[in-house]
């Protein structure tokens, strides 16, 4: 299957197969004023199958949150059809207003403040609320 190359924009590669639409929604690409293609379950030598999103246009990409959603992602920045930058995402050290603290005793449960987490264990993808230390593993 052929899809045109990107002139100026991004190729978001190595998305875990089947989750491309989630990333598409997070980046609000349905509202983007440019050409966007989602390729699902493409062959990957590294992962077997992967999803890819191609965006021919400039958008803001929050690499921290994207890294939290899927740390295997590679963001390729394209300028004039040339690869300008390749960013390998990883779990960010801090997450602000991305996940919510579930501890009913936490100050965030009653006050309108930013939900802030710090990475506590990279291997287990474990974060801790900076206010109450409650852990969040996404389960």
């Amino acid at each position, binding site marked *: 299957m052929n899809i045109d190359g990107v002139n100026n924009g991004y190729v978001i590669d190595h998305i875990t197969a089947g989750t491309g639409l989630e990333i598409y929604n997070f980046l609000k690409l349905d509202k983007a004023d440019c050409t966007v293609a989602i390729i699902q379950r493409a062959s990957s030598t590294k992962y077997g199958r992967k999803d890819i999103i191609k965006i021919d246009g400039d958008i803001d990409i929050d690499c921290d949150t994207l890294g939290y959603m899927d740390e295997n992602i590679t963001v390729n920045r394209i300028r004039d059809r040339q690869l300008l930058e390749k960013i390998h995402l990883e779990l960010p050290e801090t997450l602000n207003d991305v996940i919510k603290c579930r*501890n009913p*005793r*936490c*100050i*965030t*449960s*009653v*006050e*309108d*403040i930013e939900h802030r987490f710090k990475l506590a264990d990279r291997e287990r993808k474990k974060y*801790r*609320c*900076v*206010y*109450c*230390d*409650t*852990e969040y593993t996404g389960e």
Partner: protein
Amino acid sequence: MGTRKNLINITDLSVAEIDHLIEIADDIIENPEVYQDMCAHKKLATLFFEPSTRTRLSFTAAMMELGGNVLGFDQAASSSTSKGESVADTVVMASCYADIIAMRHPKEGAPYVGAQYASVPVINAGDGGHFHPTQTLTDLMTIHRKKGRLGGYTIGMCGDLKFGRTVHSLINALLRYDDIRYILISPEELEVPDYMKEALDAAGAEWKEVRSLEEAMPELDILYMTRVQRERFFNEEDYIRLKDSFILHRDMLGTAKEDLAILHPLPRVNEIAKDVDDDPRACYFYQALMGKYIRMALILYLLGLK
């Protein structure tokens, strides 16, 4: 927060700083007259969003003995919180009137939020079931006075180890000292949370869990008793079932060491029988006194006066 020093978690203080505070507190005990006007014209705001007797009185007494003044409130109902004011706004306002803030709040992390907005030092005087660093300083001061050292003993922690913030703070503080064995004595329902067990393991500490006070007693140099607190439970049934699980009676001290030090953050309900009070090993009221001296030292330090 800049370079202004706050005390939110006991680990905000280095071991050297804790040693310094203990040194000041020892000197206050020896030479109280030297300190009696050191905080003249200074004000401490006690922002207590939930009721407290001991901690608030201790802070108040500490500031008064330093020649300073105290203002504040002792329950959320008498503050603007009842009108919907945020923690941030309350501390910004209090910073206009006071030189230092001691804050207690039922929600975990509230003093941390306060410290981000205040323009004066903020002391966490207890945030829900989370941390209570000045109680920990009190505990360390008492251990120092009774044992002459802060490492090299077996400590038993008994009661509500799940919600008991004093226990969590004390463990975090003690993990930085050498050669301490921990015996965690609690019912299964009130065990220390996993993150505390991880902290013990990460520090390479020797620890074990037991289900009865009698089993641990002969090994202990320090016994740290805690109250099973009604307000930490979501339902009354669980509270009633567990509150009497771990009660210390005098006859249980038969197997205890002669120089055992029995500590308790107070208030007690029934977890230490009255007949233990006369035993020379009971140190909990002495501990309350030490709480005043170490808070005096802390106020002086955070105000940059010592």
